[in-house]
């Protein structure tokens, strides 16, 4: 059984149709890149799979759970158990330190383990930035804090929406290397949205969307 199963997924925003019947299957442990030009519907697809948005039609099942059938709070609980998010813009609680921002995800999930948060941040090269506020960190450092927060609860699914969109090439490579290492070690599934072919090369499989439809689905060799 596929870990992610998307069938006939549609999404309308008023008179605009963002997704026009998407069918997609992702196996557990895969790193899939969703590529496409701006406005193609790739972020919408990611938000629907992550349960951050509701579909107009079709189905999304993750690990056997039909997420469209879940209530808002059940969906929140499901999200914190199964998923980790990395956003393009580094969304943080601005008055909390890097470690505390990571602990926020722990707080919603189960327990607040400061030691574990510190360990993960140190693994990602932020051992000396634990008590810095997000505004005191560089773009690359902020993105690594986002990664730490996304993986702190050992999610089965990592959803990344343009995680390198605001980074220079050096930090992009650093972020992708980090994800690659974590993917190898963590056995989690990665669904990464990008419009950058360089980023897409790091994935095992690339799904290309144009105008709300999947136009290509190919393995990276």
């Amino acid at each position, binding site marked *: 059984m596929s870990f992610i199963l998307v069938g006939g997924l549609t999404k309308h925003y008023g008179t605009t149709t963002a997704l026009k019947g998407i069918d997609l299957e992702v196996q557990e442990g895969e790193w899939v890149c969703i590529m496409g030009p701006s406005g193609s519907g790739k*972020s919408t697809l990611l*938000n629907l799979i*992550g349960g*951050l*948005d509701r579909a107009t039609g079709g189905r999304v099942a993750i690990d056997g759970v039909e997420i469209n059938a879940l209530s*808002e*709070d059940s969906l*929140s*609980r499901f*999200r*914190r*158990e199964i*998923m980790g*998010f990395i*956003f393009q*813009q580094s*969304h*943080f*609680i*601005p*008055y*909390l330190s890097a470690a*505390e921002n990571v*602990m*926020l*995800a722990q*707080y*919603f*999930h189960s*327990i*607040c*383990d*400061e030691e574990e948060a510190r360990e993960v941040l140190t693994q990602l090269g932020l051992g000396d930035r634990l008590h810095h506020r997000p505004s005191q960190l560089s773009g690359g450092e902020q993105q690594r804090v986002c990664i730490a*927060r996304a993986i702190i609860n050992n999610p089965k699914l990592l959803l990344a929406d343009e995680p390198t969109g605001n980074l220079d090439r050096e930090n992009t490579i650093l972020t992708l290397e980090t994800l690659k290492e974590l993917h190898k070690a963590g056995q989690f599934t990665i669904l990464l949205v990008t419009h950058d072919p360089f980023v897409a090369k790091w994935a095992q499989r690339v799904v290309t969307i144009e105008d709300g439809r999947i136009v290509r689905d190919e393995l990276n060799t």
Partner: protein
Amino acid sequence: MKKSRWFALFLKKAVMERMGRIVFAAAAITVATTLSVVLFAVPAGISERLGEELKAYGANLVVVPLNESSYINENELLNIHKGPVDSFFYQLYGQANLDKGVVEIVGVDFSQAKQAAMGWKIHGRWPVHSEEILAGAAIKEIIGGMEKVGLSWEGRKKEFKVAGFLETGGREDKNIFLDIKEAQGILNLHGKVSAVFLRAKRENLETVSKEIERSMPSVKVKTLQEVARAEEIFLKRIQFLMAFVTFVVLCGAIVSVSSTMMTTTIERRREIALMKALGGTRLIIGLFFIAEAVLTGIAGGIAGFPLGVLLSQMIAKSSFGSFISVSAYLFFLSIAVGMMIAIAGSIIPVKGALRLDPAIVLRGE
């Protein structure tokens, strides 16, 4: 780290981050809690004081002549003794000369007064014979604490020993109380009294009044309770007015907190969206905001209590001429009112904020 400790840490940082707004909201709550304390403290304090004054009277009926310039014959008063009266004492009013000017003298039967005027505060002791007097507290200042005072009238003079000083906080403090027979002699009103103060059971007041007026056609009976009732009505009107003002201020404070919370939640939309994306349920996220509001309410309540007490005392002193005692439970009431305002003002903005769509907010739209 325990979740509760982390929650407290988060709350502390969130509060510190928006201290200006929180102080503004707390100030609005403080105004409302101040008035709430006044609303409860002033009527309660005044009622208590009224009760004390009535108790000081010791009497709830007073018999006076129909014609204010005449007197009641002492022998007519024998009828009163037969009725259902708990206690009574006569008073005869007049004037005499003290060394330093004219003074109001009051003739009383000290044995009756001792029994009936329970609230009289005596510094010293009660007179035990007709050569001794009680001087009002204000007289003490005139005579300078002398052991003996000389009263003169119509070219005659007599010295009396001061057994004690009387303090009631009322007009009695300016009088000299002496044995009724001595007063009748000085005023040349033998067998006459100016008024009789009676204490009867509340349920017997009307019967006793009617019986006295029937048997003594030349007198009228006043119920001191009527005075108290009039004051109670006055007090209730003030209470109603204050309740109305407090209600308006409470509503104002709720609106103020609500608009502050509205601004805060708009500012923090990304935080809320992020928390939702990280798996926070509406209840858990809502608790962060409600806890922040509750803290603001507690701060407003704590600040409102001393201000309320101060304002209550100012009102009591200026309107009723005396300070009042304020119950400590009003401190908790103040905090409870503060919390109530904060929660009431936060519910709608927080509920609205929790409905936001995280995908849209996190996209930056």
